[in-house]
């Protein structure tokens, strides 16, 4: 088992499997990139409408090809049919949300279910027809890369590559429209056309993903990698690049896993791999992760306690809070019997001095002081230049008894 997976991971499981792996990785990258822009445009759900709207076209193409040559399985025709009906579905969403009072989400819901229902009816019809390859159709629901022809894998890889290039060319237009469409228009960007291009690229990704992840799960590949990328960066183009990497990685892991044993479904494995990456990111991201947030909160809490404790020492006030006492003791600022140590006294003096500097700074430059993070808890030397601190110190009143 593990050995087979290792062979697949290192591209040694035959030409076809390697080709499929590369094609899936390109698909994952394309899905991650276009998915990021669609997410930032706040239209993630539209990929759900696109994918479900492919089914009737797919089935109709199968019927037509089947009637002509006796076997309906001819990928180029199936994808063309899927693309046509997806485009029709997108158009329907557009018309409904523009011409009626329904929002885009309601329009998506209506179109998605209607198209899917029609597709399911057509598939039932196909089951009763006397054409070959009916069983292969279910592969388009959950994805099946086993037994994929080299020509099919090449078609998928080429289309994915085309999508990647188109996104690179249009990245700044996409970004501008996503962040501030009005401003984009003043820059001479035809926002309507950019939105259309975005949807068309999304459609291509969905259509070529049909054979790999299946139409129900392709949505996951356009949403999960971008959301995962968001955990790791605050910058737009990095988010796009990261989502591409994560999408490719999910595709790589999923498709190689599925080649381990006959009959493992590709789509679910890719989505599970994408989710695993998401889960790890959610826990361990250094900026927005759950653990990082917990740690940052604990650190901040300790700093507040330490500062309050030191100030209390400096002012000879009693300390009752157990955590404060514990932190002071652990720092070596306080003896077991509650008497401050020498370093403790020094630290308390420093804290008091710091506090007075901050108070003075806040009084003199309220605007600037507000702009500094953790106002009053960050060492003032990190916020102000040495000369500015000297100037403040010169202004400090000599006695400590200033505050009420």
């Amino acid at each position, binding site marked *: 088992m593990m050995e087979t997976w290792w062979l697949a991971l290192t591209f040694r499981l035959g030409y076809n499997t390697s080709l499929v792996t590369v094609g899936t990785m390109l698909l994952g990258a394309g899905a991650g990139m276009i998915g990021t822009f669609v997410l930032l445009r706040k239209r993630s759900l539209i990929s759900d409408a696109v994918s479900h709207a492919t089914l009737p076209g797919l089935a109709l193409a199968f019927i037509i090809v089947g009637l002509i040559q006796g076997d309906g399985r001819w990928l180029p025709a199936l994808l063309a049919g899927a693309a046509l009906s997806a485009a029709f579905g997108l158009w329907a969403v557009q018309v409904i949300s523009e011409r009626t009072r329904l929002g885009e989400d309601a329009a998506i819901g209506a179109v998605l279910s209607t198209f899917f229902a029609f597709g399911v009816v057509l598939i039932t019809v196909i089951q009763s027809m006397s054409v070959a390859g009916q069983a292969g159709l279910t592969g388009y629901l959950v994805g099946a890369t086993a037994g994929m022809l080299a020509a099919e894998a090449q078609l998928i890889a080429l289309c994915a590559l085309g999508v990647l290039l188109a996104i690179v060319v249009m990245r700044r237009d996409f970004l501008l429209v996503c962040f501030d469409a009005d401003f984009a*228009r*003043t820059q001479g960007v035809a926002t309507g056309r950019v939105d259309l291009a975005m949807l068309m690229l999304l459609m291509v990704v969905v259509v070529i993903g049909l054979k790999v992840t299946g139409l129900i799960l392709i949505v996951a590949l356009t949403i999960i990698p971008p959301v995962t990328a968001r955990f790791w960066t605050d910058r737009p183009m990095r988010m796009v690049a990261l989502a591409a990497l994560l999408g490719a990685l999910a595709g790589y892991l999923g498709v190689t896993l599925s080649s381990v044993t006959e009959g493992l479904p590709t789509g679910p494995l890719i989505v599970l791999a994408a989710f695993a990456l998401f889960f790890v990111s959610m826990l361990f991201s250094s900026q927005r992760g759950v653990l990082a947030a917990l740690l940052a909160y604990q650190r901040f809490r300790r700093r507040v306690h330490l500062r309050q404790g030191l100030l209390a020492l400096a002012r000879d006030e009693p300390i009752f809070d157990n955590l404060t006492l514990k932190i002071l003791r652990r720092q070596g600022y306080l003896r077991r019997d509650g008497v401050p140590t020498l370093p403790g006294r020094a630290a308390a003096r420093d804290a008091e001095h710091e506090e007075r500097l901050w108070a003075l700074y806040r009084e003199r430059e309220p605007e600037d002081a507000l702009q500094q993070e953790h106002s009053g808890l960050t060492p003032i030397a990190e916020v102000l230049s040495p000369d500015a601190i000297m100037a403040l110190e010169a202004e400090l009143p000599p006695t400590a008894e200033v505050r009420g």
Partner: protein
Amino acid sequence: MTQAPPISEEVAKSPLAIHGLTVSYAHHPVVHSVDFVTPPGSLTAIVGPNGAGKSTLLKAVLGITRRLTGEVRVFGEPVEAMSRHVAYVPQRSSVDWDFPATVIDVVTMGLFRDLHWWQLTRRHHRQRALESLSRVGMEAFADRQIGQLSGGQQQRVFLARALTQQAELTILDEPFAGVDAATEKAIVEVLKQLKREGRTLLCVHHDLATVRDYFDHVLLLNVRRIAAGPVDEVFTERNLQATYGGRLSAVQLARLLEPADVAHAGSGR
């Protein structure tokens, strides 16, 4: 196409000449047949009550909202061909500040027209963006996530983005709405500086009390053009009453019209 009518010299020289501009939302005109020729190098306020069509006028000029009728010319040419010379500072609330971008990312968007798709954003682009940021006093915030900014800082970032375009005409939509006093002062300073450089500014403004202090020209608007021209000539009791439909009290007016008192006057709403 018919022969284009001859353009007067005033229109040919104006950074923004509007003629017969009408914008309507479903048979209801919100801006009706407005003519206005912006004098070159002026700092003009567009003033009027809520719902007077001030922002709509700007958006129609910029091509964001569709015009029903009318012509907009920049230095005598149709605005569509001249949009490179026009910078826009939208209202702060028009974007999602949770967007994954830092301050420098947003300001660099002002360079959109100078960057082709095969180009990367290089050091000299970043330098240009940083210069704009320092003009609004925000250079220290270049790498800050935009969601962490205060309202005033967000407004300054939008102004910096417009500055990087180095446009002849800058159009601002309520740049002082909901910003702190220090930011208001900083923005006014930048606007006056741009004016001294010979650039033209057009600004929707809601605070009547500061019109005399900040601006040299004014367009009084309430769906239709009520009056326009230099502040000293146009910013009069009669015109203001006409614009606000008699809704301004005598006390408010007295305060607005006595220049000596302006510095101490409160908000004019």
